[in-house]
């Protein structure tokens, strides 16, 4: 298999994640989009690690990305819960209080 195939999969992942972020009004839906995007980055890094001279470094970065994604999910969930506590909804469109 070639590098390009993996990059194509990653592109699909990325675009789906972005779409998720653009269309989902549920806060956790947006979060899932973020996860998809991070996953696509991960896939990219590992593919480059496999097919180029990036070597083991790519996997190390991917590992860091995974860890960061987990941390980000925890914090984002906490934020979402707080958001829910304060707004009684998880609709991100209602979180425009700062604008008013």
């Amino acid at each position, binding site marked *: 298999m070639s590098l390009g195939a993996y990059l194509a999969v990653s592109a699909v992942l990325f675009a789906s994640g*972005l779409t998720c*972020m*653009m*269309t*989902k*009004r549920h806060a956790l839906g*947006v979060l899932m989009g973020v996860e998809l995007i991070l996953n696509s980055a991960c896939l990219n890094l590992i593919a480059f690690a496999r097919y180029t001279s990036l070597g083991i470094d790519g996997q190390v970065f991917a590992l860091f990305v995974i860890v960061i994604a987990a941390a980000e999910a925890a914090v984002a969930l906490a934020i979402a819960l707080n958001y829910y506590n304060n707004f009684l909804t998880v609709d*991100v*469109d209602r*979180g*425009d*209080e*700062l*604008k008013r």
Partner: protein
Amino acid sequence: MLAWLLPFAGCVVITVLRLKLSRLSAVPGWIGTGSLLVAFCLSLFSAGLWLMTSPAETAASSVSAEETPGIQAAKVGDDAAHETGYSPQRRLVGHWYSLAKFGEIDFPLGYAIDALTVLMFVLVTMISLAVHAYSLVYMADEQTESYQDHHLDHSPGETPERPGRFAHFYAALGLFTFAMLGIVLANGLLQIFIFWELVGFSSYLLIGFYHERRTARLASMKAFLMNRVGDVGFVLGMTILLVTCGTLLLYPVHDLNGNTSGSAPMALPEAFQAAVEKVVPSEENHQPTDLLPSGQGISYALLVAAGLGLLAGCVGKSAQFPLHTWLADAMEGPTPVSALVHSATMVAAGVYLAARIAPLLLPEALLLLAYVGVVTLLLGASMAIVARDLKLVLAHSTISQLGLMLLGIGVGAWEAAIFHLITHAFFKSLLFLGAGSVIHTTHHEQDLEKLGGLRAHLPLTSLTMLIGVIALSGLAVPYVTIFGESLGFSGFHSKDAIVSGAMAFVLKNPHHILLLISVLLGACLTAAYSLRLWLKLFARDTPVDPALQQVHEGPWLMTWPLVVLAFFAAFCALGGEEGLVSTLVEASLSPAPAWFSGSTDEVVSIQWTNASDRHAVHGTAGAMALAAAWLGALIAWALYGLRAISSKDLSRQLTPLVRLASHRWHFDTLYRGFLVLPILNLARHTAWIDRILIDPFIDGCARFSERFSHASQWFDEAMINRFFDNMASSVWAWGLSLRKAQTGHIRQYVLLATMAVIVLFLILFAWMPGGRAGP
């Protein structure tokens, strides 16, 4: 060294604590006293160590090792470097820290410990301890929130009140002691000068302690300014010495055995000697015109001036003839302070320094010093004998005794001078504390005419003061000895030493006979006024003033220092010039430089004496001094004790003289007329110039700049502000319009960002073919 730091620590602690403690608390006093007690014990300990290890010949390195815990770190030089030829004394010199270093010249902070230092430590800490303890009672009325000062001028309806300053007092007292110890410990003129000024400052604090009183304010200011006059000389002298000798250190660094550690820089006496020897050969063919600088070498006159400058500092500090007026005014301070100032610390500093730097003084300077001492001696004595104020008598007595000491230095007998300094410290502090006791118990009554007949009420005070008076006047029972000792108190021995020094000097230089006569006259007067004081106070059995009927002794804290000091005043000079104290003093002072040993000098023809000369005339001199003292005592006895002669008649007959003396020889008037008023006038004229010429100019400038700023204000407001306002409002409006784009919807932001990325990529691909890496 620890003993030196403790009072400072006490001072600091008190200063800190006074922020926290109530004004009613006696804790600061106890802290101060406690620290002094420890310091005193440490001093005693080190003195004991010093005495135990005293034979310098057998001193081994183990001795100095034993010494270290007591006197803190001797720098043991393992190799015996060159034995400094001129200083066989045991001395511990070292440096802690270099303040600054300019090329070759080093300004270190160091210490020079020898027998005199140790002795002075014991003395200072002991007297200071006595004063501290004494003050616990004397100043007890300061432990209040509202201290009523009856000496203040006030309208009858109100009593001026102020918060008590007990802690303040102890802090200043601790600082004072610390500074004096610093002088004693210092090695190097610069360090001495630092502590010198610290002494001046803390004395300013203490003299002006009752600073609500105008007199106290003026007195402290006067003391400070007078000291400044002397200090100018000090600084000048130091500068000259620094230029000529290249160092300000008194002694080279070496350990107890005189071993210098490595290549020690040349110390001051050595360098000075070298400088003098460089100059003196050019005096072989002495021409008066050669006195002034003729070549590029150092002028002899410059060296004399250096000595004179340093002496000016001593004169100012020790309240000698031209600058003596501050001391009498300094009585405005609390009495314990006076005791400390007059005995061990401030005025002693001058004499101490003079004795320390004596090898640096050329004969001209010494001679001048001798005459200054004589004049002061007589002046002080004459003022003391007519003074009505209890403390003033003692103050003038101090002036006169200090004159005696400087005379001793001036005639080359500086061992005697220091000896007298020490004995004087004891009995003068004793007298002051006794006077304080009287004043305290009689509720601040200081007038001798109102006091009197207190013996029955204050038995201990009267007894101790009698001892002090006898010691001061140098009285003794002639030709009677007990246990091989002549029957006399400490003053007898020390005064004898000075008188013999003066006599030996006069014998060699007969044209200076005036010195001897004055000394004897001074001794006579001393005995007279001191006995007068005692008789006035204690002679009669019943108080003159009925208000003093209920007077009785103060608490033990007040009387015990008196007793202790009386003991020392009586017996500290035991053994006379062969005694312990005198020996220690002799062991530590620098011996006379080479030119002292009899060689006739070219400029002022003086034959110098040495110890053996003085010893030869000792008996005669003692007899003469004793006779003079007895004469004075008898006169006083006749006048005030027996009232055989009415003192009033006598004073009426000697009216001009008495008036002159009681007006302190009009020195204050003279100073006022010749110095203060002209300066004030000058100031007035300067102020006039200021007002007429400079002020209008400045005003004009100000007015111009005001106009200018008005103009620029207009410019600012009309042009710049409007410009920025317009800009800000347009930015504001723009921001408001942009705000509509900020929907606060996170999804929209993502959408826009994605769009932007896509557009950017498209632009990149469309217009930047270089960005395409593909085929």
